[in-house]
């Protein structure tokens, strides 16, 4: 961990910049900053053992001036860290927080046709099986091997 990193906590603005780098938005989908995602990430980070430490290590590995650089530069800075388990934990917490935000849920419904309510208790229609799809497959001669 760099010296600067050692003093970087999850309450610092650098977390917001890091999340914005991962989820910058694109005009349609909101960015991490627009959603204030850092707050949701802070809430989630304690939900699994080791995630807080992992995030702190990623923050600690960021160089001085990270927050002042451009999106492209920040992405370049992050690439060498990207394969690590710590970075994996960061992505998990960030996406987990992002994909349950009300604004994002709305887009998932509108743009992707995804029903965002919990799958139970209502479920979805279980259509009856349509046997006609088997017309061709049924016509094949048995081909299992005698033993």
């Amino acid at each position, binding site marked *: 961990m760099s010296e600067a990193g050692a003093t970087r906590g999850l309450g610092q603005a650098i977390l917001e910049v890091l999340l914005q780098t991962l989820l910058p938005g694109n005009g349609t989908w909101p960015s991490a900053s627009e959603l204030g995602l850092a707050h949701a990430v802070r809430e989630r980070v304690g939900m699994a053992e080791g995630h807080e430490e992992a995030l702190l290590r990623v923050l600690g590995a960021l160089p001085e001036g990270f927050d002042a650089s451009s999106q492209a530069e920040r992405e370049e800075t992050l690439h060498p860290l990207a394969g690590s388990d710590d970075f994996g934990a960061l992505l*998990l917490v960030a996406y987990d927080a992002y994909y*349950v935000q009300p604004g994002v849920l709305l887009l998932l419904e509108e743009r992707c046709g995804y029903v965002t309510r919990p799958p139970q208790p209502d*479920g979805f229609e279980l259509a009856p099986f*349509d046997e006609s799809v088997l017309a061709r497959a049924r016509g094949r001669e048995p081909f*299992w091997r005698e033993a």
Partner: protein
Amino acid sequence: MIGAGAGGGAASWRLAQAGLDVVCLERGEWTDAASYPAATPGWESRRVRDFHPNPNIRRRDTDYPIDDSTSLIKPLMFCGVGGSTIMWTAHNPRFHPSDFRVKTLDGVADDWPLSYEELAPYYELNDRMIGVAGIHGDPAMPERDPRPLPPLPLGVGATRLAEAYDRLGHHWWPADSAVLTRDYDGRLACNNCGPCELGCTRGSKASSDITYWPKAIADGAHLVTRAAVREITLDERGRASGAVWIDDDGREHHQPAKIVVLAANGVGTPRLMLLSNSKRFPDGLANDSGLVGRNLMLHPIALATGVFDDNVDSFHGPDGLTIFSQEFYETDPERDFVRGYGVQVTRGQGPLITALGGFALDVPWGRNHHDRFEQLFGHVVTCAILIEDLPHEHNRVQLSDTVSDRFDLPAPQMVYELDDNSRRMAAHGIESSSEALREAGAREVLTMDMLPMAGFHLMGTARMGDDPTRSVVDGSGRAHDVGNLFVADGSLFTTSAGVNPTPTIQALALRVADQIISARRDIAVPTDV
């Protein structure tokens, strides 16, 4: 009975029904269906936390750690009443007749000490007990009794693949699923909610806590939960005399038994046998062959995921599969591998798992995240290529030197590597599945040679066989070296076949129980129990 999972549930019911006194010791506890994630907002995030299928990530106090530092493929299982069937996606295929005769037919591994025909009545019984949906007429399999329930609907993505397979002249068939498509045996039909892996809140998916266990208990079986067995004890004549188990407070108890049945799965059973060393068995219980823990098989899985321009509704439908292809299942000398693989056509995932890369997806973080997410979410169909894993003695479960559980007992360690045959099969499977996906209209196909989080099927570590130097138990599941010790779980498998194992585990467990019932008067048991 040690372990209340797929095999333990089936065997306990059969034994209790025949009037035997059954006590089952299970390290986990009953799960409350109302606590499963599917009915709560944020349900998907529990899939990566307390409902992760990997016990090393899930880390409940009922789980035990598994040292997987020496295994390419990571272990997936559940500890509790129902065992790993709490999380299974309930694909319920049978082995082929040829799967029991691989040595005779193909000159590899060993033949099983029993045939498909001998197991078939137990497959039928199990299908009726758990409620299986499917349809007769599959040309890849022998004729059999009709399934109790009609198949699940295919869904958009699988329908496209089915049509593509038809055009290519490839085999496909609706999957057998232990998911109720109609109300059955007092249980509700599936309402197509999707995440079967997170436990079924309606009881439509056949986990053994709701299929076999209520019946076993009604027939007098006694189930002790949060009872972690640490040793199988022997009497002075080398017969199994019971089990030492540890309760939540770390107190030890001894459960005496005339007959001991191990059903703690392909990792838990060899672990317990290796922990149970004695003067008679210094290298682990019933291990004169040296094969306890050896021949671990896992079914490596390769992936080909097709990306479609239009939305194929791939976040809907059951987690498991609705169709499969066995075009490349049997050995063909023209190919560069022996034995074969099955292809399971599965759906996509919810938003969180999609963003995290789902099945072979390449969703980047950063500026391209949102566009790529939208291209993939709901637009994918995955062919999971399930490879017949040949047994090798070097692939094994042993006791870890470095990892231990909360009772300070050595954790099991998985030592596992892929063989070249599997790699060649994976390459073939990716090519054939890519062709099928493109034929189905996929614009792009994303692939993965080997899925690391794929240790769902734990097999072979106390294998069956007629030859006591090449196997741990005989064809009835009885240990060669200890006459009143039996195994009734995935450890039994002589070979792995190219299909999911659980119906075969449960059929074997029912058969092991019947063998115990018919031989019990001749089995030498400890006199003081």
